C-alpha cells in the first residue's frame, strides 16, 4: 500500500463503526474471555474459580498435550512440507513441460484434477476416506483382498500404529492441489525469455527449474508455506470425521483436544488454556512468515 499520504478528510471513521462493533462482539470479547477463562477452573456452569497458572502448569505435564503437538508437527509435514515440494515440482512440470509439449489443455486438465479435493467440504472428504479406509466394508481392504494382497489389509484408522499415517496420507491428497494452482499462477509472471536464454546456454531442465523457477516464485512459496502450516495447526474437521482423535489419542490434535475439554469433559478452563497456547503459536508464526515474505519481496523478485 503506497501512493497518497494523509487522508481524504475526516468523516470516514463512521464507516468503520459497524465493523468495529461486530468485531468487538464476535472476536475481541470472546478472545479476551477465553484468555481470562484459561486462568480459572470452570465446568461451564456457575462461577469460574480463579486458579492462576494452574491450567498451564497442568498442560506442561500432560502427555496428551505434548502428543497432540507432536501429531501437529507430523501433520505439518503432510499438509505443508510435502504438498509444497511436490506441488512445486508438479507445477513446474505442468507449466514448463506439459503445456509446451502437449498444449495448455492438458496442463489445465491436470491442474483441475489435482485441485478437485480442495473444493470439497472437509467433512465430506472425511466421509469419503472414512469409508475407503474402513476395516470391514472399506474399499481399500476389499481391493487389496481381491488383488491377492489381503495380508496388507489393515485397520487403517482404528489401529494406533497406522491411524496417524493414514490421516497424513489423506491430508497430502487433500492439500496437493493448492500449491499446484498457486505456483502455476506464479509461474505466469516469469518472463519466457529467461527460459529461452537458459535453453540457449544449454541448461538442463533441472538446472532451469532450480535456478529460475524456484528462485523467481519465492513470494508464492512463502505464501503457500504459511497458509498450509496454519491450516495444519488448525486442523479439526478431518480429525473429527475420520478418527475423533483416536484410537487411544493416536491422532489427537490441539483443536480436537480443546473441543473435547469444552464439550465432553466440561473442563472449560483447561480447554481455554489449550486454545490460548495454540493461538499464540499461530499468531507468532504468521508474523515470522510475514517478515520473511517481506524480506524476500524486498530482495527484488517482483
Amino acid at each position, binding site marked *: 500500500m503506497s501512493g497518497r499520504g494523509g487522508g481524504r478528510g475526516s468523516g470516514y471513521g463512521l464507516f468503520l463503526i459497524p465493523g468495529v462493533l461486530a468485531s468487538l462482539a464476535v472476536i475481541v470479547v470472546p478472545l479476551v474471555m477465553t484468555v481470562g*477463562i484459561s486462568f480459572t477452573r470452570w465446568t461451564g456452569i456457575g462461577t469460574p474459580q480463579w486458579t492462576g497458572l494452574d491450567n498451564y502448569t497442568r498442560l506442561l505435564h500432560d502427555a496428551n498435550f505434548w502428543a497432540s503437538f507432536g501429531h501437529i508437527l507430523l501433520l505439518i509435514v503432510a499438509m505443508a512440507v510435502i504438498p509444497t515440494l511436490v506441488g512445486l515440482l508438479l507445477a513446474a512440470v505442468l507449466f514448463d513441460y506439459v503445456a509446451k509439449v502437449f498444449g495448455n489443455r492438458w496442463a489445465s486438465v491436470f491442474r483441475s484434477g489435482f485441485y478437485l479435493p480442495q473444493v470439497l467440504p472437509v467433512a465430506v472428504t472425511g466421509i469419503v476416506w472414512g469409508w475407503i479406509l474402513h476395516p470391514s466394508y472399506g474399499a481399500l481392504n476389499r*481391493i487389496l483382498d481381491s488383488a491377492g494382497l489381503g495380508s496388507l489389509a489393515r485397520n487403517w484408522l482404528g489401529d494406533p500404529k497406522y491411524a496417524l499415517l493414514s490421516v497424513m496420507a489423506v491430508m497430502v491428497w487433500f492439500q496437493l492441489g493448492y500449491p499446484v494452482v498457486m505456483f502455476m499462477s506464479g509461474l505466469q509472471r516469469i518472463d519466457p525469455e529467461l527460459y529461452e536464454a537458459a535453453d540457449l546456454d544449454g541448461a538442463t531442465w533441472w538446472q532451469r527449474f532450480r535456478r529460475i523457477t524456484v528462485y523467481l516464485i519465492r513470494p508464492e512459496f512463502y505464501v503457500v508455506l504459511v497458509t498450509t502450516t496454519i491450516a495444519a495447526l488448525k486442523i479439526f474437521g478431518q480429525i473429527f470425521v475420520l478418527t475423533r482423535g483416536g484410537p487411544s489419542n493416536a491422532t489427537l490434535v490441539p483443536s480436537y483436544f480443546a473441543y473435547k475439554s469444552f464439550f465432553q469433559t466440561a473442563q472449560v478452563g483447561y480447554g481455554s488454556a489449550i486454545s490460548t497456547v495454540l493461538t499464540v503459536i499461530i499468531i507468532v508464526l504468521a508474523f515470522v512468515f510475514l517478515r520473511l515474505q517481506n524480506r524476500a519481496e524486498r530482495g527484488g523478485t517482483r
Partner: protein
Amino acid sequence: MTVLSAPARQDRTEGAEPLRPVKRRRPARWVVLAVLLVLVLLVVAPMLVVAINAVKTPADYASNGPLSIPERLSFQGIADFWERVDFTRKLLNSFVTSLAVAVLAVLLSVLNAYALGIGRVKGRIWFLVFFLVANVLPQEVLAYPLYYLSKDLHLYDSLTSIVIIFTVIQSAFGTYLLSSVYAEFPTELLDAAAVDGAGKWRTLWRVVVPVSRPTLAVLFTFFFIWTWNEFFLPLIFLVSNENQTVPVALGVLQGDRLMDATTTSASALVGILPAMLFFLIFQRTLTRGITAGAIK
C-alpha cells in the same frame, strides 16, 4: 472437464515454439505424461469410487466389491439417505446461511475497507493488524464464549447465530484484502465525484463499489464456498436436526450403525455434488481469485 482454464496464456505457450523440446526427447514425454496421469487418477479415484458405489445395490457391492461397474443403476441408496436425513432441508439451511453470509460479509468488508483503504482513518495500521490477526485465529479460541453468549441471547441452535459469526469472521479477510485494493483506488475518480458534489456515502455506492465489482465478486464467491464448507462452529451451534447444514449432517453420521458401504457412498456423493456444482459455476471467478485468496 476443462475447469480452471487460463486463456490468457494460450498464445504465448502454444504459438511460440511448440515442437522443439518434442524432437529432443521423444521417449521422455510419454513417461512424464504417464506418471502425471497415474498421479491425477490417484487423486480423483476416491471420488470416482464413491460415485460408482453410490448407485449400486448393497447386494451388488457385497458380491462384486467396490471397483466393479454397477450391474444396474440403483438410486435407492441415495433416495433412502436423502429421506432419512431430510437432505432437502440441510441443503436449504446451507444455501440460506452461505448466501446471507456472503452478502453481509461483502457489505461489511466494503464499509471497513472504504474507511481504511480510501479514507485512511487514524490508526489504520492497527486496524489492519487486528483484521490480519482475526484472520488467522483458530476458531476454538472463540468457540466457548460464543456458545455461552449465544445461549444467553437465545441465539443458540439457530442459523442466525451462524450467519452473524461467519459474517464477521469472513469480513476480517475481506477487509484485509479489500483495504489494499482500495489503497490503490484511482484518486481521479474520487476527485471527480467530489467535484460533482457527491458526498462520501454517494461516492461509495456510485463510484467505489461499481469500479471494484470484480474483486467483490471474488470475495462473494470465497465467502459463499467457505461458509458452505465450514464445520467446526456449525457443529457446535447447530445441534437440532432441522438446523443442521450439509457438512454437519454428514459429519455426525459417521460411525452410525445404519451406514453401510453403499449408504456411505451415497451420503458422500450428495455432499460432493453441490461443491462440484459451485466449483463449475464459480470457476472463472475462482481462477482469478485463488491467488488473491493467498493472503488468508
